[in-house]
């Protein structure tokens, strides 16, 4: 098992290096891409600041708390993009039939399709984000226990994000008609940019447990602020595990539908 993990880490590192070198070969493009993301991040931040300055609260949360929700959303979103960038390049492989080459390699096809091409450009934005989170969190006075739960819930969020990406991969095989399923996931995830308390039932219930955007984006921050019971935290881990299980089942089903067209 240890040997297997070592092998997969080695493969991951190699693929990540290749992906980074490919990004570096197009420096100007990468620069614009990163710039666009940073601008979007800062404009939304400004929006929250000016909005909350005018209204004092959003769904009962003050500026500091809303900002913490926003930064947590970005942390999960950016780490997901860093880890699962290969998903964005998956559909052309199915259309061209070059996915055959992935299937015939002695590594897990899901591992290659999900994690085989991490985006180091996204990685650079994570440390400043963590610093901003620490800075904002100082005003929230969390307990050590809340901080530990928050970190564990961020891992749970990444499991849910991985599951979403696996669903996207599976859909890419099952139907060739949709070419931006991953962008639909991004739009869904964007619903968690602000605390999900802004939504009304039944939408709030749907995005908390059925499509667990709330569990992924809002719950870690709410736990950090001591605003949820321990039972809900446990429930969210169950949701994460179940979602991962279902996504892998779906991936296995989708593989049986792969027709190797155009290859």
């Amino acid at each position: 098992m240890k040997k297997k993990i070592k092998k997969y880490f080695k493969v991951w590192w190699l693929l990540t290096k290749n992906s980074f070198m490919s990004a570096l070969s197009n420096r100007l493009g990468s620069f614009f891409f990163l710039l666009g993301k940073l601008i979007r991040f800062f404009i939304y931040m400004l929006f929250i600041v000016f909005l909350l300055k005018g209204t004092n609260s959003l769904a009962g949360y003050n500026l500091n708390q809303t900002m913490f929700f926003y930064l947590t959303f970005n942390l999960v979103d950016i780490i997901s993009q860093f880890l699962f960038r290969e998903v964005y390049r998956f559909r052309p492989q199915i259309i061209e039939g070059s996915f055959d080459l992935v299937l015939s390699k002695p590594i897990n096809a899901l591992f290659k399709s999900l994690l085989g091409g991490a985006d180091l450009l996204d990685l650079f934005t994570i440390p400043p984000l963590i610093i901003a989170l620490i800075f904002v969190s100082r005003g929230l006075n969390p307990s050590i226990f809340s901080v530990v739960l928050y970190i564990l819930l961020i891992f749970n969020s990444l499991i849910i994000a991985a599951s979403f990406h696996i669903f996207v991969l599976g859909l890419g095989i099952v139907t060739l008609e949709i070419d931006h399923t991953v962008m639909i996931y991004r739009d869904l995830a964007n619903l968690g940019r602000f605390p999900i308390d802004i939504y009304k039932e039944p939408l709030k219930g749907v995005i908390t447990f059925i499509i667990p955007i709330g569990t992924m984006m809002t719950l870690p921050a709410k736990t950090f602020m001591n605003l949820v019971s321990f039972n809900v935290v446990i429930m969210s881990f169950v949701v994460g595990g179940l979602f991962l299980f279902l996504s892998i089942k779906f991936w296995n089903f989708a593989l049986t539908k792969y027709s190797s067209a155009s290859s």
Partner: protein
Amino acid sequence: MKKYLQVLKITLQQEFAYRLNFIMWRVRNVMQVVLMFFLWSSVFSDPTKQFFGYDRTKILTYVFGILVIKAIVFSSRTIELSGIISDGTLGIYLLKPINFFKYWFTADMASKILNLSFSLVETAILFILLKPEIYFQSNPIYLLLFLLSLIIAVLLFFVTIFLINMFSFWAPEVGWALPFLFIVIVGDFLSGSVFPLDIFPRTFQNIFYSLPFPYLVFFPLQIYLGKISIPTTINGIVISLGWLIIFGVLVKYVWGKGLKKFSAEGI
């Protein structure tokens, strides 16, 4: 005229060829509106309160207005221009007995017709589901000025997107980058299509108003909502017309320079 009608028909057929894809694209637009609807509903949970000069009815009208106006202004096929220049297929278009600008403008119109039709249906569905309070403008002068600002917005977007896509003449490998930045910065924010620009302090607003971008979405919506006086509206229309002329002249100039640079590589 007849050939442009054919272009319109063909473009509509092309859009329909990938029906599910198109529907998914529309779903994405609706989701953005849903997010903003709930955000502002939460802010204006007390219907008697006013923030940033909006009451609940006006802000929700703004959110729904975004869906329709974005369909009219931002639906475009001209965004493909950068790819056509980069891969050399521009050469094929140049050989055709058709005016290149009119061709793309007509293709844009087809895209706008389709997107507008869908956005109206979506608005009706969301209206039934969410039951928002909507502001109806009844002053004919405001309605006329709103229509005029919308026409200018469509033309302004066309020349702007044409201009930035021509960056591909000089940097074909990153030709997508400027349109990408434009969509992120202008399409999402500076046009007011995510949130109204008047939540920002006065200084910011003055800077925004001197740029061409608020005239794409924010300004027409301000007129519709009757939030600005008639003289301010006319002033805004003059500024946006000024930008339209400047960008129009620039498009012609850069197009001429670009064609000299173009070598039809890649065909």
